[in-house]
């Protein structure tokens, strides 16, 4: 049997509005005490009613339009009914038959070849987030659970793709590019670890000869891009192995267990779902005029694809550099900010892709939180250009900047690592090295180039690397000849 992997994603993004979706509690709940950003509406107290936040509608329209969706001119909300402690009304206000956006697509490019694939977007709709449950230990062994409703009512968009992704890697790339888009739209920060971007996947295997589609499973609890890829790879292998043995795949929800690197069946732990959707009587249908759609379309910010084109054209960057810059909006912003003060884009991109990204990754810091601001990075590069420090020293200075957040100039002064530009001083040191190493001088005179390297090294040792190597080498040659 020739097998083909079929993956569809269900992505939830949290909108970065100030207030929640149906009330005016703050969405800024990270680091706040439990149940502090709550009111009768997001607690679902009896008698309270929802009123939609205008900005949520705007953000959702931006998202749907950026994903090339058609917009329902009349859209409405439904109630999705189920009992769970994190859902205070025992129903989630969501959308069902008339979602805000439908029938869209996102064209992704697969590195390194840059092959383009168009992935269908089934729908984009608005809904409310639930609260958070905290268990003592894990959910199965815990004797009780605790509920925090701060997250209840955070605005979400659900983005559902067609089952058109053909590999776990493609799924990961799609998700990365989707994240970059919502970041560029400035509607979501796209932080998977903190849950502002979440992803579930439906996955099955298709017999590509007969076209028969296998039973699908739903994978949940993938909390990073890496986890998405690893979980789906595991699931592909699991399903293939079962099929090879002629064992039927069970339609079920499976959780990705990050510590064990496996997906685990949730069968028996979830009840049969019958959500009893019906139109939410507390919210009237949303009428979305063509004028409103046009206005939002016109004011859409620059999206990653066109930004990439611009980077290539305006900054003369190679495609793969541009690709890296747009993959994370904040990184592109960083580069643009720095390049406003620094002309040599080639040097700049090398530092950004090299030292900056390496250190951020190593220390698990987001670009926005980088201790070295674009201005500070440019400050460092200018010290190199002015010959104050060498490129090699600059790397050390960079690391010190990253740790302390100080300006390059400040570190250089404190540590007295300015390059010696005083020629007289350098000549004195050169003379001293020549005097101390007669054998090497003789070797050099007999044409041994290696001896010159040794002498230069000695000068660098005396100056603790603060001398310019090519100047030193020239100086040694001249002093020996004279």
């Amino acid at each position, binding site marked *: 049997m020739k097998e083909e992997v079929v993956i569809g994603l269900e992505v939830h993004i949290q909108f970065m509005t100030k207030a929640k979706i149906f009330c*005016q509690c703050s969405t800024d709940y990270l680091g706040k005490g439990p149940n502090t*950003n*709550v*009111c009768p509406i997001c607690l679902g107290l009896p008698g309270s009613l929802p*009123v939609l936040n*205008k900005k949520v509608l705007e953000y959702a329209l931006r998202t749907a339009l950026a994903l090339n969706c058609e917009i329902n001119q009349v859209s*409405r909300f439904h109630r999705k009914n189920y009992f769970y402690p994190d859902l205070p009304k025992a129903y989630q206000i969501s959308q069902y038959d008339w979602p805000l956006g439908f029938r869209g697509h996102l064209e992704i490019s697969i590195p390194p070849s840059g092959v383009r694939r168009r992935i269908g977007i089934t729908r984009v709709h608005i809904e409310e987030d639930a609260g958070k449950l905290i268990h003592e230990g894990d959910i199965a062994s815990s004797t009780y659970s605790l509920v925090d409703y701060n997250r209840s009512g955070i605005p979400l968009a659900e983005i559902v793709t067609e089952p058109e992704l053909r590999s776990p890697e493609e799924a990961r790339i799609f998700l990365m590019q989707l994240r970059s888009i919502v970041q560029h739209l400035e509607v979501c920060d796209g932080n998977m670890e903190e849950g502002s971007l979440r992803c579930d996947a439906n996955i099955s295997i298709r017999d590509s000869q007969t076209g028969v589609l296998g039973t699908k499973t739903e994978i949940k609890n993938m909390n990073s891009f890496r986890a998405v890829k690893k979980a789906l790879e595991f699931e592909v292998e699991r399903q293939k192995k079962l099929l090879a043995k002629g064992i039927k795949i069970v339609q079920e929800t499976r959780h990705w267990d990050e510590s064990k690197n496996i997906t685990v069946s949730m069968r028996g732990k979830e009840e049969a779902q019958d959500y009893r959707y019906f139109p939410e009587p507390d919210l*009237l249908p949303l009428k979305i005029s063509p004028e409103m759609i046009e206005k939002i379309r016109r004011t859409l910010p620059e999206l990653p694809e066109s930004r990439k084109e611009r980077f290539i054209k305006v900054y003369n960057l190679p495609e793969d550099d541009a690709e890296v810059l747009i993959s994370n909006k904040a990184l592109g912003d960083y580069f643009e900010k720095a390049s406003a003060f620094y002309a040599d884009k080639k040097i700049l991109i090398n530092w950004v892709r090299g030292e900056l990204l390496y250190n951020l990754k190593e220390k698990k810091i987001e670009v926005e939180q980088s201790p070295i601001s674009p201005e500070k990075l440019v400050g460092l590069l200018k010290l190199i250009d002015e010959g104050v420090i060498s490129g090699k020293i600059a790397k050390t200075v960079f690391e010190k900047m990253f740790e302390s957040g100080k300006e390059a100039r400040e570190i250089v002064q404190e540590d007295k690592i300015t390059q010696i530009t005083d020629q007289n001083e350098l000549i004195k040191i050169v003379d001293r090295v020549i005097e101390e190493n007669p054998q090497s001088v003789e070797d050099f005179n007999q044409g041994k180039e290696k001896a010159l390297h040794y002498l230069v090294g000695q000068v660098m040792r005396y100056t603790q690397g603060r001398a310019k190597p090519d100047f030193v080498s020239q100086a040694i040659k001249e002093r020996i000849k004279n």
Partner: protein
Amino acid sequence: MTKKIITKKEVEYVARLAKLEFNEEEKGEFTSQLNTILDYFSKLNELDTEKVEPTAYVVSQDNLLNEDEIKPSLSPEEVFSNTPYIQKGYFKVPKIM
């Protein structure tokens, strides 16, 4: 004798969805009462509604929208004024599984 529209098994399924529990006697009583009611309700089938649009809302106006502005939330005293099941600022619920 009314028609059997809903079975006891369905009553049990619906009770599970609604998170209600009944003893055998109650189940029997509910099944028979619901059958009487549903039998009467089957009157609606006399009407051909093939081409009728459903009414979900009786008022038609543009949806009211909130500005994206923050208003004060409830105080902890207010949040927890109606339950003794509190722990460290959380609502406490029995084990899930």
